[in-house]
């Protein structure tokens, strides 16, 4: 048990770190132990489900999935290894996402700051918002053909709206008295924007980045499923066409891994953008 104490005048701040004692009883109640149980059960069921069929089952064992993953990494498919395909998808996402964020966040802030801009642009945002970004895939293929552009366009659309809306809501939910702090000190409208609007909406903007990147990852896969000859979406659709579940599952594992890395990096960025926020424990 370690303890640190500061005090200021009549108030005392004490920080204590307590270590839990390890017993057999606490082990059974320990979530980490249950996690292990859970994973073992899950993979066993998966394995049994895959081996029970007589060969034509559309599922392969976890072990075979891993092997498929390894094979795809070492031998090229459609001209590239799995690593190359992953990079293709990732590159598209990063380009589309960056463009969307660069335009979306300033636009959202502008809508929040200026009533006039909001009156002009909000109706347009509201008209486009309910249309799922994936519905644009057909038009984007008509417009841009089958190269990189239609995919980047879909990713842009998928991540643009969350960026705009979160920045906008971030500004709208700012405590109005915070502006008074700046005004009382004789700050200008620009000071209000710089000192209050941008930092105060940062948590919402950062949450928007999370939503955007998830949406962008879904967008790239959908676009690649519909028409492409590279990328992870292409891998799984190729696996489907070849009736090769090993390939499909391997692709899905990769998709999950990349999605996880993207989310984790967004959380890192969130910590960098908003170091002052209290930790909120959740799923």
């Amino acid at each position: 048990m370690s303890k640190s104490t500061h005090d200021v005048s009549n108030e005392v701040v004490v920080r204590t770190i307590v270590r839990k004692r390890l017993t057999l009883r606490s082990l059974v109640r320990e979530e980490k132990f249950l996690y292990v149980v859970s994973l073992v059960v899950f993979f066993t069921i998966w394995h049994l489900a895959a081996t029970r069929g007589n060969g034509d089952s559309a599922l392969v064992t976890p072990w075979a999935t891993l092997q498929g993953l390894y094979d795809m990494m070492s031998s090229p498919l459609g001209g590239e290894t799995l690593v190359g395909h992953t990079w293709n998808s990732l590159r598209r996402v990063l380009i589309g996402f960056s463009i969307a964020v660069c335009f979306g966040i300033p636009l959202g802030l502008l809508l929040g700051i200026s009533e006039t801009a909001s009156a002009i642009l909000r109706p347009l945002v509201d008209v486009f918002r309910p249309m799922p970004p994936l519905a644009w895939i057909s038009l984007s293929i008509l417009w841009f053909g089958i190269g990189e552009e239609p995919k980047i366009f879909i990713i842009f659309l998928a991540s643009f709206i969350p960026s705009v809306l979160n920045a906008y809501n971030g500004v709208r939910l700012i405590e109005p008295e915070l502006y008074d702090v700046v005004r009382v000190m004789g700050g200008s409208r620009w000071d209000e924007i710089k000192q209050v609007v941008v930092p105060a909406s940062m948590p919402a903007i950062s949450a928007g980045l999370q939503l955007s990147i998830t949406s962008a990852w879904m967008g790239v896969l959908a676009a690649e499923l519909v028409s492409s000859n590279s990328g992870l979406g292409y891998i799984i659709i190729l696996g489907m066409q070849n009736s090769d579940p090993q390939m499909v599952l391997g692709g899905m594992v990769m998709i999950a891994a990349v999605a996880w890395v993207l989310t984790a990096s967004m959380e890192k960025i969130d910590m960098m953008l908003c170091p002052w926020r209290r930790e909120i424990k959740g799923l």
Partner: protein
Amino acid sequence: MNKHVKISAENVSKEFIQKGTQRVPVLKDISLQVFDQELLVVLGPGQSGKTTLLRIIAGLEKPTQGRITLDGEEIRGPGPDRGLVFQSYMLFPWKTVEANVRLGLEMAQVPKEKHAETVRHYLDLVGLNGFEKYYPHQLSGGMKQRVGIARAFSTQPKVMLMDEPFGQLDAQTRLFMERETERIWLSDKRTTIFITNNIDEALLLGDRIVTLEGKLPGRMKKSYEVNLPRPRDPMDMEFLKLRHTITSEQELTL
């Protein structure tokens, strides 16, 4: 003693528009003079318009009628010559204690090299040295309001405006902070308007106490001089007498 009038309010009235269509009168015909180096307490129950009065003096609201002058010049908007301490602290959660206090200096375009020294000086004054790098959420309520006070002081305003600064604190911390406020005020006798709904706080701190009527629109009721030696003892006979007078006269309106 020749008293210089620092702030003067002349027939100030204020109405708000509520829910888009309701006209709510908040202040009616307030005339008030605050003298240089005075600690004036405005005492009134909740919903008596005292916060609005302070916000008008700060320049955050415009009076519907009447005018307020500071050193003879009419107040037309907020400015660094008046420092405001907010009831709900209003620290910027994304800034450290140090950066929160520095905010006013940046805006007043004080030369950069003076920032560190000034910040340290005011954090010392409110007893917060050692907490420079903390974020507001790591501090207790009393410590947060110390930062609020340091921030308001840092630009050396001519007048300090304190809006129920200790309303959210527990009784003990509150008493302690009242003593601290008195100590800080005695150290440079800056003209201060202090708003509260707590009569003991008013009597502990005020050179003069002005009471507001307890329902909207807020009107000036009475003014009491408090000629007790500082630091004041809340068990002192004179203190209790004055307390009794104010309480009984306040209660008539309730």
